[in-house]
């Protein structure tokens, strides 16, 4: 059975929360802003407060990362934050508190970004059940490819969760198609061959990845990795449906707390409006 990205084959209550959030932004003539925060950094309460600040200042979707011992896709800033959260005793189950804390106060779609082993350990079905119960929209899975995702496909269908897989500049057309077909909500286009971290400019590869994903049938494609300023956002908003900012927000909460997250989000959101054609 294949499932389409926009969730057409599902019942109304299983409509994609991420797709709805992106479509609301689209109806306003702009791209969606997606902000990342690591759960439990610097504390669970701060993550909730910062998530609410994200939503209140222009973020349409929020990505909550689960701190993990071996984050191979993350650069220094996020590694330092998640390592600290773990050192302070963060537990995976607390991510549901964070999701609940944000979804109960805002109408942003809240996704969890996680390396796969914490989900395996809890049990894919149990993790999915608890995420759905907390009001979560779905999962972004940086080290899970559709080839290995049979159990997650079943659980995400069962609980009506979005499954956001990544596509990269190195993805072949066949893999692009396979990944787009397996995704629901949106497809996460990795802008560059590398790990998370602020960069001075957005890779030109990003536009090509988005085009390839669209050619493979993706209805919603969001771009992440290396996006840190309003001008990056503006550049990407020209061709993508959403713009994902991570490291810059983590640095903001590290250096200036929730207030800094709010003001950076406000600034980033100024880049969202597409230029008139």
């Amino acid at each position, binding site marked *: 059975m294949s499932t389409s990205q926009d969730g057409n084959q599902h019942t109304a209550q299983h409509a994609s929360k991420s797709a709805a959030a992106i479509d609301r932004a689209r109806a306003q003539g702009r791209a969606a802003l997606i902000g990342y925060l690591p759960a439990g950094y610097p504390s669970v309460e701060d993550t909730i407060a910062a998530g609410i600040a994200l939503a209140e200042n222009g973020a349409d979707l929020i990505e909550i990362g689960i701190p993990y011992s*071996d984050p*191979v896709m993350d650069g220094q800033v996020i590694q330092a934050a998640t*390592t600290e959260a773990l050192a302070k005793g963060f537990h995976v189950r607390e991510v549901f508190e964070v999701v609940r804390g944000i979804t109960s106060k805002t109408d942003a779609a809240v996704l969890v970004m996680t390396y796969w082993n914490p989900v395996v350990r809890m049990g894919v079905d149990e993790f999915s059940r608890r995420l759905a119960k907390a009001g979560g929209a779905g999962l972004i899975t940086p080290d899970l490819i559709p080839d*290995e995702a049979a159990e997650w496909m079943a659980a995400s269908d069962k609980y009506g969760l979005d499954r956001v897989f990544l596509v990269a500049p190195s993805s072949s057309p066949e893999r692009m198609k396979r990944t787009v077909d397996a995704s629901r909500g949106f497809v996460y286009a990795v802008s560059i061959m590398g790990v998370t971290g602020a960069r001075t400019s957005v890779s030109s590869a990003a536009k090509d990845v988005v085009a390839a994903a669209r050619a493979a049938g993706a209805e919603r494609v969001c771009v992440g990795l290396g996006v840190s300023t309003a001008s990056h956002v503006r550049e990407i908003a020209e061709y993508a449906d959403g713009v994902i900012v991570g490291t810059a927000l983590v640095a903001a909460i590290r250096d200036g707390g929730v207030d800094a997250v709010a003001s950076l989000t406000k600034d980033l959101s100024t880049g969202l409006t597409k230029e008139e054609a």
Partner: protein
Amino acid sequence: MVRLMVDAPAAGSDESAVDAFLQGGRPEEHPAQGEPSLRHAPGPYFGNYGGRWMPESLIAALDELEDTFEKAKADPEFTAQIAELNKNYSGRPSLLTEAKRFAEHAGGVRIFLKREDLNHTGSHKINNVLGQALLAKRMGKTRVIAETGAGQHGVASATAAALLGLECVVYMGAEDCRRQSLNVARMELLGATVIPVTNGSQTLKDAINEALRDWVANVGNTHYLLGTAAGAHPFPAMVRYFHEVIGEEARAQILDQTGRLPDAVCACIGGGSNAIGIFHGFLDDPSVKIYGFEAGGEGVETGRHAATITLGKPGVLHGARSYLMQDDDGQTIESHSISAGLDYPGVGPEHSYLADIGRVSYEPITDSEAMEAFRLLCRTEGIIPAIESAHALAGAIKVGQRLAADAAADAAAGRATDAGAASEKIVIVNLSGRGDKDVATAAEWFDLLDKDSPEAEIAKEGEQL
């Protein structure tokens, strides 16, 4: 074609696993007769293990590697190149040496050592790095990266890169760099760049994480020369392929020297590359019992160990589904072993499969047991083994004593035959590496150093020079 798979439910708590182990371990199972061959398992899956739990960014590189490897295996020019390098550069075949005085301490059975310690660079590691470096050249890559714990794989990688004219970057935990400053110097002498890793726990697993981050960013010109039979497909099957020569040689040599197959084969298991190499030669010989000895560290009951299969649970790390030392949240647990080469919280997926089907028995050996076997081999045979290999030697002593006890029981029951006597039992031990690198650790362990010597100072702070 990649098969979709379903996750097995997680087992009980860590405590109950410890209890189960202490009370007799995993259920005994044996492969049924007439089962299909266990040799040459192609991956990506070994039963429920293996696969590709990797970022999409790296899948194209894994596909390219798999394709290159499959074509190379079928190319007589490639296999001839490997054979030539094995013979004239590494010094293969390695000897199979009977250890008669050592065997007196192992129930009086006959013990033979597969002498991978005599290879160029001092361990089995050279088999794999030469193969992968040749594949890197075939793919047109100009740069190889590698992870290393104690430095053995780093040195081997730097060696292969120097031989084949490749740029080489080695990631090594900052703490290991300090403890292993001589190995850092060896790599630099060979032209490699060593990058100390300060992230996470600053150990081997973090060096792998950092190498993977480098690979994602530089995959166009870079091959990741993974040092063990773990990781994403095709690494486990490919690394095994390059080490299969160990088992092929050992099987032919024991038949030549004794006229029959051994009763048991023993190897140490960290990631498991030397072990899978020697095991492979005997997987389809049902009369040969196969044993893998994991690092029991300070004792599996202390929590300070690296006995991944004995006490771990299935999970995904560094690209493969396999047994894994992890907490209830799925966070990787730090491993502990006196042997840096075994100090890894994961294990190759084929070993997890061989454990589950009962073809190979995996048991922990403590630091103390390994060091006693280390000393014993030094003093009875004039061979200083790597501390990794000493775990296999300690295990062989136990296996030999069990075989002798079985022979005695048979004799008491009136079933004694010449072939059944302890002195006719044969055990092969894979002596995966030499112990020169471990002299400081051993000297500290046996209290051989002057209190004020610089070596004592270093050994006090770290595990090895």
